């Protein structure tokens, strides 16, 4: 297959393209869904395709095909070239940042290959996890999902880069629903890691499932949250969401280049309090956002985005790094063969500080302690973000008191970072899929407990 890809690269250059990139991908997936102990579906899938991207006189063209027959590949290449030519009028020339040519072969470490694990084993795992929640109480209902993915990928570029990559990962996620006297509450949890079937043992899934059931039961006793501005303490999962939604996305250099990030022109300036240090690290062992190379063949790495409140860098791809004169960070990632690589985060988190949880909470007369994420969203152009919490409590005179439910937080990126007044020494990390421009990408985000003043809470009272 590598031969076919390099043949395509030569043909593309022959057609007058400045840059050609061909990416082959074949992946096998297993998707299992269980609801209340009953198997709803268990689906094996196989996909194969090639993505071809060319740069011609400043315009990008991209084409995909499921076929790997030479004639079909060639016709996809010609389509990509045609598209790029049509896109290339009166455009600023694109100078891709120079990248090191690499020839390499990388594999995620796997002890029990997913392809050799019988699907019965995978179903058994999910049923056990699903049952654990329902054993907590007969009032619990569940929906549980298991997805695994084994990928073989090859990337060839006209720089001479030739990469062969083998990835393997497992994602498990569930919703628990508690019902009592006409009331229903829900709680979600899950985990994901790179590796083979052995990682199911590291996920602590049954314990998490039982916990999720207990949380759903506890939420039955919670009251709707008040609306307004409060001092809040958020746990590591929520500070991860803040890292990802509020600043992570705004630090992606494609948005900076297009002028749609509020962080444009802010490099080297203060955008947060001294407690704020933000890292994107693609090199963490087994983590769901980890990569060795990105989809442009650039080596993945650890980047400091914010150091003690000062914006230190953006996440880049070759185009944005070239145009903005920034270093390459290896953050160009594509969901699969159907998509071109765009700038994405990997494992993004706030660095822990040195305070204890008690020190964070002790001086709060009236505030909110929020835990667990329910997804978030950001408009990097306006600098506004929103994220949901799963559970929360009123803090009164330094004490955690009554339980709240159904609420989310919203704020302006820079204002919020400036309002971070304390950071604990603990740390939590949570895997998820993030959506951007129609592409879903595996990543993790995390951080310590954080104390933030003047956070807006959307409530019903």
């Amino acid at each position, binding site marked *: 297959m590598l031969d076919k890809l390099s043949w395509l690269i030569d043909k593309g250059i022959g057609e007058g393209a400045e840059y050609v990139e061909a990416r082959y991908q074949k992946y096998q997936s297993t998707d299992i869904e269980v609801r209340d102990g009953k198997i709803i579906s268990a689906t094996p899938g196989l996909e194969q395709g090639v993505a071809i991207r060319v740069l011609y006189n400043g315009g990008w063209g991209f084409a995909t095909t*499921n076929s790997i027959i030479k004639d079909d590949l060639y016709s996809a290449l010609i389509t990509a070239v045609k598209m790029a030519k049509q896109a290339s009028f009166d455009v600023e020339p694109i100078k891709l940042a120079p990248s090191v040519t690499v020839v390499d072969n990388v594999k995620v470490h796997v002890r029990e290959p997913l392809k050799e694990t019988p699907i019965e084993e995978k179903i058994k795992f999910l049923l056990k996890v699903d049952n654990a929640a329902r054993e907590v109480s007969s009032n619990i209902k569940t929906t549980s999902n298991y997805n695994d993915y084994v990928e073989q990928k090859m990337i060839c570029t006209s720089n001479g880069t030739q990469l062969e990559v083998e990835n393997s990962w497992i994602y498990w996620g569930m919703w628990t629903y508690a019902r009592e006297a006409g009331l229903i509450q829900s709680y979600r949890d899950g985990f994901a890691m790179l590796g083979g079937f052995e990682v199911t043992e590291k996920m602590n899934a049954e314990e998490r499932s039982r916990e999720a059931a207990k949380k759903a039961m506890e939420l039955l006793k919670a009251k709707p949250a008040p609306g307004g501005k409060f001092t809040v303490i958020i746990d590591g999962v929520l500070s991860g969401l803040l890292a990802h939604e509020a600043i992570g996305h705004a630090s992606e250099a494609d948005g900076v280049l*297009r002028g749609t990030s509020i962080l444009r022109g802010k490099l080297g300036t203060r955008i947060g309090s001294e407690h704020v240090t933000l890292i994107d690290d693609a090199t963490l062992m087994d983590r769901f956002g980890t990569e060795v190379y990105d989809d442009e063949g650039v080596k993945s790495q650890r980047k400091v985005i914010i150091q003690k409140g000062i914006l230190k860098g953006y996440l880049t791809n070759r185009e944005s790094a070239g145009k903005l004169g920034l270093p390459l960070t290896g953050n160009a990632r594509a969901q699969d063969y159907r998509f071109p690589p765009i700038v994405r985060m990997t494992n993004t988190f706030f660095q822990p500080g040195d305070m204890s949880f008690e020190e964070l909470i002790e001086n709060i007369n009236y505030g909110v302690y929020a835990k667990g994420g329910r997804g978030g969203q950001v408009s990097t152009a306006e600098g506004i973000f929103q994220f949901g919490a799963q559970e929360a409590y009123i803090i009164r005179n330094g004490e955690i008191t009554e339980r709240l439910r159904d609420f989310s937080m919203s704020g302006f990126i820079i204002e919020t970072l400036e309002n971070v007044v304390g950071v604990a020494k603990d740390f939590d990390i949570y895997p998820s899929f993030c959506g951007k421009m129609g592409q879903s990408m595996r990543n993790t985000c995390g951080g310590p407990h954080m104390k933030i003043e003047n956070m807006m809470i959307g409530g019903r009272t």
Partner: protein
Amino acid sequence: MDLIEAVKIAVEKAIKYGATQAEAYATKSNRISIQASNDRIGGVKSRGALNEVVEGLSIRVAVNKSLAYAHTTILSREEIEETIKRALKIAKIREPDPDFKTLPQPKTPTKVEGIFDPKIITPPIEESFEKIRKTLSEGMDTDKNFNTIGASYNFTYMERAICNSLGIEVNYKESMASTGISILGERDGIRSFGYESEANREINKLSIEKCLEKAVERTKIGFKVAKIESGEKTVIFDPDALESLMEFAFIRAIDAYNVQEGKSYLTGKLGTKISSEKLTIIDDGTLKGGLRTTPTDVEGVPSQKTIIIENGILKSYIYDSYTAHKENRESTGNAFRQFRTPITIAPRNQIIKGEEVKLEELIREVNEGIIIQGVMGAHSTNIATGAFSITANPSYIIKKGEIIGQVKGCMIAGTFKELLEKYTEQGDDIKQRGSLIAPSIKFEKVRITT
């Protein structure tokens, strides 16, 4: 191999290898997407065109009462046979499912119009780039405070084929075209973001000019920031905002899977009042030119019109054949899937009907309130309770019947049922956004936090 041939072979082979019933579903899509953005600093920042061609086949087999799926993108005889074997293996190890009765029986597909525009096969790429170029430069000239403008076109051609061992054999073509403009500007330190998009089955019905006009208007209003106190106010949802919220707060609640499992706040509410009595919501898979109109659903069940809410009363949920058979009723034709996913339930064209007034009047009658064009955080809605907590962004303040500027960071929390109870009337600016066909909709006394 063409799709109809592939699905027929798949069903035939599945039965041969031991399935008691079998169904195959195949799709081929060809999407051309073009985009460009302009920047006041340095001119055109990026231009690109993308052609995504994807085909795939999914097989569903039943061995007595055990169902299983498998899918592939390799449409050769050998790989189709391998895929069938993978599905059969799973069906044989699964516990039988007593709720599974049968795959759907064949029925005549509904005659629908306006879902395929032959122009989609060779879409006007050059012409569209030319329009984008013109729109970007005109847009920039409109206001010196505009910094960046993005423009795009999408053209999707789709073929589907469905076949089952009971005799269903359906195939059809669809077209989908869309365009959109987004503008980001800054004046006196206030950032404003305005956008507008359109989607249509017919390419010629798109107007990038109209999108520009609307996006310019919204961006300009946004340069003024106004203040509004927290409290119970009149809230008007633009269809863009309502569609995002409804997807998570309503559509999932009428999904028969969630209802039957008791995971929806609408479980057990059939025949009861769940909204203002002025409101009627219809799920219509047959509407001429509708974005969710097709002759059948993905199981080959004919498309139909289903009344969901009639004058405030919940009349029906939406079903596929599995959930319908569980209640000994007929499917409503709402089965949905991509070849890579099992069957789920999805809405068709969801039409909101109620008390209609002119849009200008709808706004003019508001003493104090907001008009919401987008929402953030709808996906965190708790479907078990219908409780949501969202940020209304972008949204604009109305005072004494006039839109006076944008409000930053306004939040709304409540349950979707409460919101439906607060419905009063709607405008005449009907648009289709995703599955929703609705105009701007007014709700009274909605609690907002600013």
